[in-house]
Each structure stands twice: as C-alpha cells, then as structure tokens.
C-alpha cells in the first residue's frame, strides 16, 4: 500500500482534505458572489481556506496544492468568469503565501504570521491585477490607484479570514483531531 510512508508527496488522506477545501472554496465563492462591485471578498475565503489547509496538513506546499486544485476545479466547473484566467486567480495568491511561509519561518507568533501571510497573498492577488492593468495599457497612476484600492479592500478581507483560522485550528487541536505535529502547540 502507498500513503503511509509517502515522504515525497502528501498522504492520500491529506491530499483529499486539501481537495475538499479547494472545492468548497470554489463552491462558496460562486455561491457568495457579491454583486456589489466590492472586489476583494474572495480574499476572505481564499486566505481562510488556504491557511486552514496549511494548519491542518502541517506542511509547506499545502497552500500551493490547494490553490492549484481550486484553480483546476474552478476551470472545470466554469466558476466566475471562466477560462484559464481563473486558474491564476486562485493559484497566484497561494504560491505567494507558501513562499512567504518559507521566508518567514517561525519569525512571528502564529497569529501574526498567519495575518502577514494572508496579506502577502492579497498583495500577490492585487499585483496580478496591477500587471494586467498595465498590460492592457492603463496609465501608471490609474493602475496604481486601482492596485491600492484592491489591496486595501482585499487586505481587510484577508485579515478577517486569517483571524478566523486560529480559533478553528486551536479547537481541532484541542479535540485531538489533528493527529500530526502541527503548528499549534
């Protein structure tokens, strides 16, 4: 049998958990689509689900995997505006968050580490928007203002998402439901 000593990849059970999180993220995003033009709400779900994955699976790479799966599921289900661009929307923040985790190491206490990582995810998400805006030919000033607004709105949602992660993880740990060595002591 595989899985038990699968050192190079995720155990099947963890991979499935990441997949469930990714799918639920995409489903909730499509259900809760706010039509108010209030961009950034998707960062709430993204930062929450990505960080939960990281906390539960307890491995670097979990967020990237979750982002890639969410992107794939969104492409398959045709969520949002559809097409290959949606893949990047989920994948780019995830990759940035994982890289931030590697750089940060154990620098900050967990709560603030999660918040910083979520903000970096949001930064990557807004930067993707900035790059797009510049590529389509907007003036630098306009693109930067759009970037700033996007980051502010998204950042607010990311922080809320990140703050909700810890109570959930703590409870999972307290109830002995995370059977691995995780971040929560």
């Amino acid at each position, binding site marked *: 049998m*595989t899985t038990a000593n699968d050192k190079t990849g995720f155990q*099947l059970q963890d991979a499935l958990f990441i997949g469930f999180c990714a799918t639920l993220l995409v489903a909730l995003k499509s259900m809760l689509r706010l039509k108010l033009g209030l961009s950034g709400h998707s960062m709430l779900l993204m930062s929450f689900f990505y960080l939960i994955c990281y906390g539960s699976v307890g491995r670097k790479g979990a967020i990237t995997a979750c982002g890639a799966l969410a992107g794939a599921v969104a492409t398959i289900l045709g969520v949002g505006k559809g097409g290959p661009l949606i893949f990047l929307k989920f994948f780019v923040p995830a990759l940035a968050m994982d890289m931030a985790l590697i750089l940060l190491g154990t620098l900050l206490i967990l709560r603030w580490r999660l918040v910083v990582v979520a903000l970096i995810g949001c930064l990557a998400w807004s930067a993707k928007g900035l790059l797009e805006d510049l590529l389509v030919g907007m003036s630098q000033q306009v693109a930067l203002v759009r970037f700033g607004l996007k980051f502010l709105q998204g950042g607010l949602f990311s922080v809320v998402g990140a703050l909700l992660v810890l109570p*959930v993880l703590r409870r999972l740990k307290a109830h002995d439901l995370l059977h691995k060595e995780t971040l929560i002591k």
Partner: protein
Amino acid sequence: MWAKRRQPLQSKISSVNDASGLWLAASAMLMVTLLSSAAFLAPQSALLYLALTNVLLLVHGLLCRGNIGGILRYIVLQLGFTLLLYVVIHGGQQLHQGAWAVARLLLALLPGWWLTVVIKPQWIGEVLAKIMPVKWAFVVAASINLLPYMTSELRDIYQLQLLRGARIAPRQLLNPLNWYELAYCVIFPLFVQLLKLAQQTATAARSRHFGSHPQPTHWRDPRSHQ
C-alpha cells in the same frame, strides 16, 4: 511514491466517449489561453483582428445559449470605475486610453466565457486529468463528486446550530462580531467532518487497491465501444 501516470478524471463523469471530443476540448482550451493572453500582449494594430475573432466566439456562445450578462455587468462596472479614475487623475483628457484598456479586459474575458459555455465541464476535466498526476486527478474527481455531500453537511450543521440558538441568522451575520460564532459553531464542526470524510474516502480508495499499481488502466462505459 505516487507514480506520475495519467488517469482520466471521473469528475461529473459520463466520460468523453470519443477521442476527437477530447482533442476538441484540448484545442479549445489552448486557443482560449492564447486569445486571452493576446488581449494583454497584442499590439494595438492587431486588436481589430482579435476583436473580430472574439465577436465570432461571442456569436457562437450566444447561439449556444450562453448568458453574457455577468461579464457585461462586470465590464460596465470596470468601465465606470476606470473612467472615473481617469477623470479624477488626468482630468478627462485620456479617457480613450481608459476605454481601450477596459476593452482589452473584455477581450481577455470573452474567450474564457465562450469555453465555459461551449465545452462541457467533464471534457475540461478529462483534459486537465491528462496533465495531472494520477493521485491529484483522483483527488479532484473525488472532491467534485463529494461536493453535494459537503454542501449538504454545511447546510445541515448551519441549520442545527441556528435551531440551537446560535447567533448566525443572516441578519445577525451582518454584525461581524457574530462571525466568530459562525466559525465556532458551523465552520469548526464542518472541518471536523471534512477531516473524517478525507480519512474515510482514503480508506475506501485504498481498500480498492488505489495506488497499488504504477500504471492504472481506465474504465469506459460500454457504450463508448459501440
């Protein structure tokens, strides 16, 4: 270690019954990626041709009963917002630049919309499964398969806690202080269920020899042979 072999994804299944369908889906995805990228990268002079191609996709998509409303609303919002910024920052002198930029955004979105309308989800799934390792293809398929189960769990838990007096009715959730209650009463038990579900699904798959062979074969429903 998991073998990096390919296995068709059984998501939303009724698998693609002919190889040509799969090729069609793969070509469509490639074309859409190229067209979307072109919207960002193409020089101004090529934009007219790109626009013409997109008009064809739009007409085809509409003929296939696609709903363009969502994209249009988004673009109108973007246009209004961007032009407002141009007026504030540049005093209304470069409005055409803003309009062109938003037009390019529209050209970037249209191919994706067309793909969603014209190509069935399971075809896209099969194409993605071809380029994914076998384990992750299974994970995506199982996740999509279990999505209805997961959403009904979420709904059940939410309703149970609402009946138990939790402050999570839609009106109460307008107050962000109650979001913590939502996290404790609904999201936490939901993750407990998801962890269990992952464990059980993994056991179910392993009990049927999942991962025991580096080169799994694939089933096709008999009709595909006819």
